[in-house]
């Protein structure tokens, strides 16, 4: 198994706040890895540092064997690394279709883009029905689908997802998790940040627990799901 994403001793500060205190973890090609943790643990900070939205103070982020810690954020998606951000952040005043096409912004292969668009519409028929609707008028669940579809439009090797189930009703949560599995089955490596630890551990291969900027527990997702400490802190019955 080859390592796709390798994070080592990552330190990130917001002014004087030490948000990530030298964390290390990795994601193998083909895996679903989940990063769970309470509010403010540093999950979003971790993902945003990986995809170049926040600068790191020190450490290393290797992607496919290449150091990307100083790579400008906008160059990563062309290298196959897509990010579905926390809170969806769809372009509210643009149509569903325009949002999706922005997902393919760095691609030049017209036919390939068309093919990917068809796949995205297969994953999310709702987006096809609403392709001319303004994204800001979609429901929360639909916006999440759009944010995921938009990331898929870049035809990524790896997606990082930041709390895709946040604020969604149980039916939508199940649908979103089903689609994450489908995306994974189609060959995409997944790094999933979730507060819904039950669900995340049920689909992941491995997991890390992040507590106030430190990784405190790591292991096979199954083992973590049965770990009494994890159960007490993160899993509700």
């Amino acid at each position: 198994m080859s390592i796709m994403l390798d994070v080592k001793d990552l330190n990130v500060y917001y002014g004087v706040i030490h948000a990530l205190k030298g964390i290390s973890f990795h994601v193998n090609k083909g895996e679903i890895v989940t990063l769970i943790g309470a509010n403010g643990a540093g999950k979003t900070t971790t993902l945003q540092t990986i995809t170049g939205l926040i600068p790191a103070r020190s450490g290393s982020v290797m992607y496919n064997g290449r150091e990307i810690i100083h790579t400008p954020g906008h160059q990563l998606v062309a290298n196959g690394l897509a990010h579905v951000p926390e809170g969806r952040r769809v372009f509210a005043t643009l149509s569903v279709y325009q949002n999706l096409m922005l997902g393919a912004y760095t691609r030049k292969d017209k036919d390939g883009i068309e093919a990917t668009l068809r796949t995205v519409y297969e994953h999310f028929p709702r987006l096809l029905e609403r392709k001319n609707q303004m994204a800001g008028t979609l429901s929360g669940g639909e916006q999440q689908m759009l944010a995921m579809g938009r990331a898929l439009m870049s035809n990524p090797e790896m997606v990082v997802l930041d709390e895709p189930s946040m604020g969604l009703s149980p039916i939508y949560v199940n649908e979103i998790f089903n689609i994450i599995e489908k995306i994974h089955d189609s060959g995409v490596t997944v790094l999933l940040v979730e507060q819904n630890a039950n669900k995340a551990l049920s689909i992941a291969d491995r997991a890390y627990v992040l507590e106030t900027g430190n990784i405190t527990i790591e292991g096979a997702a199954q083992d973590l799901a049965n770990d009494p400490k994890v159960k007490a802190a993160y899993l509700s019955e």
Partner: protein
Amino acid sequence: MMSFISYLLNGLSLGSVYAIIALGYTMVYGIAKMLNFAHGDILMVGGYAAFIALNSLGLPVPVSVLVSMVVCTLLGITIEKVAYKPLRKANSLSVLITAIGVSYLLQNLAQLIFTANPKSFSSFVGIEPIKLAGGQLTVSGETVVTIFTCVIIVAGLVTFINKTKAGQAMLAVSEDKGAATLMGVDVNGTISLTFAIGSALAAIGGILLCSAYPTLTPTTGAMPGIKAFVAAVLGGIGSIPGAFIGGIILGVLENLAKAYISSKLSDAIVFSVLIIVLLVKPTGILGKKIMEKV
């Protein structure tokens, strides 16, 4: 009646100039979220560049226009890089003060180089006045060219924004720089492009303005700059069609007020209209009210 039509046409022409300048204001605001108060002075530099190209270097009109556009584009990009980019994360008040500083810098540099003595700008429009209604109505070539140019520019910009990748990237950056970055959009590059387009338009606005009102001084851009800013706010800042509509309304209003009420009060009337519109609709005529779901 004929005089009314004549005032109206002059108003449309002046409004077209305001609109062309307002487009730069509104695009820069929409994408960089800042008010570039030096925009009017870029127009003035465009005027001088065109004046030198045409009168001192004896270049043909189209080449002189191009020279002026290139000078303004480079100036706009440079100002953004040197003065505004380092403040990308600063609060908006610092940026505003910097922009005002840049505005005075440009005016004073122009005064140093060209002195405060007005230059008499020879019109770039070689079209004879058109006589209509059996000679009762004369429309100057400048009026025709200005209105026509403005319509072409607005149509071109709307098409560019909606139909090209770079245009879509601009919309993405204007909404959410972080999300745009995740799409692979180079946010800094997009902001530079916006300044480039806005400044090139300012050059055209400057040439058209000076062709119709042929005195060029270091403060030529100041008042039209403020009026164009008002036009952009009136139409809904950030909106391209809004800048067009705002500019036209402002120009027509100003000319009619001058003709029928008082030439001294025309500016007061124009600004009163702005205040009333903003009281009724704070986002301006076409201002977007974005609905966001949380």
